[in-house]
C-alpha cells in the first residue's frame, strides 16, 4: 500500500479552479518539481495559499508568471515583482495576511477549530471586515480557518506510508499545511522503507499524506 506515485499523475489530480496550498519560504522548502509540473500541465484559475510567491525565476514564481493563479493569499510578495505587477493591473487578486495569522488560520482548519483570536493586526487595515473581541481589556481579531483542496509540500525524507521528515528552515509551512487540505502531495528527496524512520523523528504523520513524489535528481527543464 505504498503512496509513491509519478509526478505527472500526482499533479493531474489538481483541477482548474481549485485552491492549493504550497509550502516554502522564499523558495526554501518549496516543492519545485510539483510546481513546475503544475505549470507544464497548464492548470488555471487556481487560488494559491502560500507564504510568498518565490523569487522571480524560481518554480514558485512561475505559477504567477504562467498565469496559473487568479487569486493569491500570501504574507509577502516583494521578492517576485511579477506578482505586484499582476496585482496592480488587476490580473491577479491578492490578499495579504500577517504570517503568524496565516499559519494559525491553516492550523485552525487542520485542527478542527472554528478560528483563533490574535492581537496581530489590531489598529491596522488587517482589521477590516473582521469580528473584534475584547477580553480582559485587550482587543483581538477573530481569524477564521483557511483550508485547501490540495496541499503541495516538500520534505527531505519519507517512508512509504507517508511519514515525513523535514530539514532545517525547509520545514516552515509544510507540516501545518499537511493537515489542512483534502489531498496532500509531497515531493521528497529520499524514500525509505516502512520502519526506517524512528517514531519520534516523524514530523508529519503519514496519515495526512496521500501521495509521495520522488524528487528527480536530473536537471529539470527550465520553464522561465
Amino acid at each position: 500500500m505504498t503512496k509513491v506515485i509519478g509526478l505527472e499523475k500526482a499533479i493531474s489530480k489538481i483541477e482548474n479552479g481549485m485552491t492549493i496550498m504550497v509550502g516554502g519560504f522564499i523558495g526554501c522548502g518549496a516543492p519545485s518539481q510539483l510546481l513546475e509540473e503544475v505549470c507544464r500541465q497548464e492548470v488555471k484559475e487556481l487560488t494559491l495559499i502560500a507564504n510568498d510567491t518565490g523569487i522571480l525565476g524560481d518554480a514558485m514564481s512561475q505559477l504567477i508568471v504562467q498565469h496559473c493563479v487568479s487569486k493569491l493569499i500570501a504574507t509577502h510578495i516583494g521578492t517576485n515583482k511579477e506578482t505586484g505587477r499582476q496585482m496592480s493591473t488587476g490580473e491577479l487578486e491578492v490578499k495579504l495576511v500577517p504570517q503568524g495569522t496565516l499559519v494559525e488560520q491553516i492550523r485552525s482548519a487542520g485542527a478542527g477549530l472554528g478560528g483563533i483570536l490574535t492581537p496581530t493586526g489590531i489598529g491596522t487595515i488587517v482589521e477590516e471586515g473582521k469580528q473584534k473581541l475584547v477580553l480582559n481589556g485587550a482587543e483581538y481579531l477573530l481569524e477564521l480557518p483557511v483550508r485547501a483542496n490540495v496541499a503541495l509540500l516538500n520534505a527531505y525524507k519519507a517512508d512509504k506510508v507517508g511519514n515525513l521528515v523535514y530539514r532545517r528552515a525547509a520545514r516552515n509551512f509544510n507540516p501545518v499545511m499537511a493537515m489542512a487540505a483534502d489531498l496532500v502531495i509531497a515531493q521528497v528527496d529520499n524514500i525509505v522503507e516502512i520502519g526506517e524512520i524512528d517514531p519520534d523523528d516523524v514530523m508529519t504523520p503519514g496519515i495526512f499524506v496521500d501521495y509521495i513524489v520522488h524528487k528527480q535528481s536530473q536537471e529539470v527543464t527550465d520553464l522561465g
Partner: protein
Amino acid sequence: MDKETRMEWLVKRVAQEFKMGDVVNLGIGIPTKVANALPEGIKIILQSENGYLGVGPAPEVGKEDSDTVNAGGQYATILPGGCSFDSATSFAIIRGGHVDATVLGALQVDEEGNLASWMIPGKIVPGMGGAMDLVVGARRVIIAMEHCAKNDGLKVLKKCTLPLTAAKQVNLIVTDMGVMEVTPNGLMLKEIAPGLTFEEVQACTEAILIEPDKVAV
C-alpha cells in the same frame, strides 16, 4: 561626523540594548548589521521567523546549505545549541512574548509608538510578512532606521500617515541622529548622535522631542 560614521554609531547603539542571552529577531537591512556590533561578552540568540533559533554568520563559500537560509532568503548557518521548527511554532514564539526584542526598519514612526513599515499605497505593496506579529509579540520593539527619508522627508512624525504595521507598540527609535524612547508623554530624546545638537535633531523631526532633563520627576 559623516553619514557612514553616524550609521555605524546607530548600529553600535542598538547593539547596546541587549543583555546576555536575549532572544532577538532582527529585520532585514540595517537591523541585520546589529548582530556583528554586540559589545564584548554579550551573546544573544537570534530567531529567524522562517523557522529556527541560533542564527549564525553567513556560511563559507562552498558550504552553503539550501535548507538553511534566513528570513531574507540569504544563506545562513545554525549555531551549536540552535534548533529548527515549523512556522506555527515560530510565530508562537514571536506572538507569545518569547522574543525579548525585535529590531526593525520603518517607513514612518510616531510619538504614540505607531509604526508604518509595510506598504506605500499605490506604490510599494510587498506585504507585511512576519512584521505585524513581531511588533505585537516581541517584548521590546526597537526601530533602527535613517532619521530622514532619501528625499529628506520626515519619518519621525506626530502621526503616521501610511497604513500601520501596528498601533502603539514601538518602545525605542534609534536613528543616525539619536535615540528616542516612546513615553506616555511623547518621544524623549535620550541620546544625541556625536556632533549633533538637540535643535538639529528636532529640526529633522515632526514630533516634538522631549529633553530628558526637562522632564518633571
